[in-house]
């Protein structure tokens, strides 16, 4: 499986997330890497097919709160 490229610094900052935080954060379900989706304000785990919401700069890393990627928002 292809892992997505390393997360660039600026998108994280635009969501109000400390970019250093993304260096240590992984998907709680797959332990795979996360991508920042600035437009939707989400942290995306492709491997798990889940998008975790970021509310006021606080990532909500719970599978139960995440959007399934095939779902329409």
């Amino acid at each position, binding site marked *: 499986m292809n892992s997505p490229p390393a997360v660039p610094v600026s998108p994280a900052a635009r969501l109000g997330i400390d970019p250093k*935080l993304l260096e240590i954060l*992984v998907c*709680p379900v797959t332990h795979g890497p996360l991508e920042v989706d600035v437009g939707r304000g989400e942290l995306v785990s492709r491997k798990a097919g889940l998008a975790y919401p970021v509310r006021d700069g*606080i990532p909500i890393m719970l599978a139960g709160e995440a959007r399934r990627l095939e779902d329409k928002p």
Partner: protein
Amino acid sequence: MLLFDREILRARRERAARDWDTASFLKREISQRLVERLDDIRRSFAVAVDLGCHGGEIAAALALPGGGSRGDVRSLLQIDLAEGFARRAARFGPAIVADEETPPLAIGSCDLILSAMALHWVNDLPGLLTLCRRALRPDGLFLVAMLGGETLWQLRQCLAQAESDVESGLSPRVSPFADLRDAAGLLQRAGFALPVADSETITVDYPDPLALMRDLRAMGESNAILGRRPTLARRATLTRGAAIYTERFGNATGRVPATFEVLYLHGWAPHDSQQKPLRPGSASSRLADALQTVERPAGEKAGR
């Protein structure tokens, strides 16, 4: 086997977060005692994580009055299961909502993992310890304070008595806690080097047993054990339990003590620079010489 219902715990923690300042004294005290242990370690920990951060008490305790941080922590990631707590903690620095039971931390990404008064709710403590060891860089430190087996023994005893008096049967009302011996062994099994576990007790004085129960609820610490009876909060049982508590432990003015045991767990992610036991047979001097005595073969009686 799942012991604790994490969803119930989450709901309790969200509720506790709303009015946290009145209930946070024990968390603040334990956080302070925990981070003071960093003062004895001459090392800096650039990236640290706080598992179960509540209102950011560890972050607050890490900050030194003259600026800077204990343990020279540069960034601290605060994790809590409850969004209400993550929001409170975010005033002190980065915070996320995640289950402390399965922290979403990359392998070898942290220098220090801290936690105060959160891990007693974890179902799979051995599993969590292993996850933490992996999340640490080599020579990274795991340093946590959790509630131990002696915690609330008075309350446990009185509620058990009350329940058998009132309902003729027992169900677990106060969560079971790990004890000191378990803790040290678990650290070792999780692959930590130089594991140390020790404990101390903090006794809190309450005006009466109901004040203690209210306080536990405010702390988000009331019973989250799976398989609780639906009749858990039966008033008669609690009232009877409170009466027994006052009878057995109350002082002249009716005030009652409640014991909290705090276990401190301390272990390092293995690294070549750490001290290790020597290989058997590699000694270069004799024990008998060091003790200035005569070496005798095993099985021969000494001083015959």
